[in-house]
């Protein structure tokens, strides 16, 4: 049974068709890349899956549960987490708090217990703090736990964003251009890092990326979008030689 199944997904922005008739399924533990030129609708697909936009037509099912119509936090609690193209950390808050906030859905105490600091409050806070510190230690950013997120270096901010997403305990992780602004060396490290995350946290990953080296290197399957339409799906090697993809990406080939 597929983990996520998207069928006939269509979304329009005031006449502009951002995504049209998008069909897609992903099995558990797969790593699939979504590629396409700028404005192809890749991030829109992520926004539709996570509930930031409400799909006009079509259905998105996570383990047979319909996601269209749910709010973003409900979808996140069901097990879909994401990162952002332009890093969206809580900049003025500490690294630790960034991760603790992502535990929001897992806390068992009520607002009344929080206001009076009674009941399950202390035990739960301790549990969450410990969990968050453990996660930070795994990602090797625990040294900066009390630092403000905005003071981290760019690479560490990207790492923290992934840690924060994993703190929501997802089964499906959506990475939106994780390699943006990285040099070739860092991209190679990132490839290993993504593989490692996938094994350590046993998550399924969908990845949006422009860096062909990264996509071809780690994705098992690719989906190519152009102007909202799916123009190709298949193995990286197939995609590489697909004339339609080449046309969309590089323009029509001119004999020279």
């Amino acid at each position, binding site marked *: 049974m597929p983990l996520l199944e998207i069928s006939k997904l269509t979304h329009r922005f005031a006449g502009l068709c951002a995504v049209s008739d998008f069909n897609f399924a992903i099995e558990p533990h797969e790593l699939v890349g979504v590629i396409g030129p700028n404005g192809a609708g890749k991030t829109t697909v992520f926004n539709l899956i*996570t509930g*930031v936009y409400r799909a006009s037509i079509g259905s998105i099912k996570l383990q047979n549960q319909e996601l269209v119509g749910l*709010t*973003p*936090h409900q979808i*996140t*609690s069901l097990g879909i*987490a*994401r990162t*952002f193209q332009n890093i*969206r*950390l*809580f*900049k*003025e*808050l500490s690294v*630790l*708090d960034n991760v*603790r*906030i*992502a*535990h*929001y*859905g*897992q*806390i068992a*105490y009520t*607002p009344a217990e*929080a*206001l*009076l*600091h009674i009941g399950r*409050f*202390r035990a*739960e*806070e*301790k549990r*969450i*703090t*410990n969990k968050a*510190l*453990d996660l930070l*230690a*795994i990602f*090797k950013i*625990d040294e900066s*736990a*009390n630092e403000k997120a905005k003071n981290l270096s760019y690479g560490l901010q990207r790492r923290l964003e992934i840690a*924060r*997403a994993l*703190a*929501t305990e997802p089964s499906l992780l959506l990475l939106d251009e994780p390699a943006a602004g990285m040099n070739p060396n860092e991209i190679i490290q990132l490839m290993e890092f993504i593989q490692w995350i996938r094994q350590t946290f046993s998550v399924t990953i969908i990845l949006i990326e422009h860096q062909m080296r990264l996509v071809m290197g780690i994705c098992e399957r690719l989906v190519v979008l152009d102007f909202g339409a799916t123009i190709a799906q298949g193995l990286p090697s197939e995609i590489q030689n697909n004339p339609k993809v080449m046309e969309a990406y590089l323009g029509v080939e001119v004999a020279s």
Partner: protein
Amino acid sequence: MSSFKAAYHALLAHWHTLTGYKLFWPVFIIAGLAFCVAVDTYGFVDLYLQLILIYVGINIILTVSLNLINGYMGEFSVGHAGFMAVGAYVASLLTVHSFPAGAQNLLFPLAILAGGLGAAFVGFLVAIPSFKTRGDYLAIVTLAFCMIVKSVLENIDAVGGPRGLLGMEKLTTLPWVFFWTALSVWVIRNLVYSNFGRGVLSIREDEIASDLMSVNTRQVKIIAFVVSSFFAGIAGGLFAHALQFINPRMFDILKSTDILIMVYLGGIASISGSIIGAVIYTILLEILRPLGIWRMVFMPLMLVLLMIYRPRGIMGMKEARLFTPLRDLTTEKLWRQKKKEAPDASA
């Protein structure tokens, strides 16, 4: 100079150990309450000074509670006076019309509580537009709310209409003000240093990201508005029974502006800042009273200068150690302990 510096650091270290004790706050609160009761019973502080202290307390409640919305959540609410009005009228109507004359003193806390609950209910209603509106637009909504409250009160003859309401006994005493002030500061600090408080902060930082990190932003906004307006209502009830007279004009946009000034003077997203802001503003206004009309030139001028040289207020985005729960201060210790137990984790 260096000896001065050394002395300062020694003092600071002592201060840190002192505030590090678990008993600091319980002792401080009991002592404060005892002092207030003593002042109230034996009257060794003159009445004018007592009244100023009462206003300081009321303003602290207003500032801390507004800071929850404007500082911690990063919204811009200008309707705080409206919540205050609801609390003031509900509490006053109870003490004037419903409570038996003999038991006023005994039932006073109930009246204040009812005022708070009434305001909290209205705060719940105001939270609903905040689901969709942000920033300037929410400011307009809260402004409209403030005007609605005022004109509704002006048009109900049963509560005195524009003439206002009187007949309250002077029930607001220093110990009660101290009690409610301590309670509001404690509860709001508790909220800020909890899961829901972190949710409030994350809405300020990035609402969409916070929603995508499983924060139930609607729930968080409702909690913030309800708690904030509850304490505004409490402050309103205390205010009404300190002044013994209220009318709708007291709770117009100018009153909201006063509270906003205290919030931004003390610093956003800071409980210690709110307290400092409320104390300085209230006391300075009293001290400058001899200046007459020039007071209203001097005060704004001071604010302009403050905003130029300290744009985030005195304590903006900072918190005194005293108001940070020990638990949060000791996370670093917790982490070091963890490292010691599992040294391979860092390798």
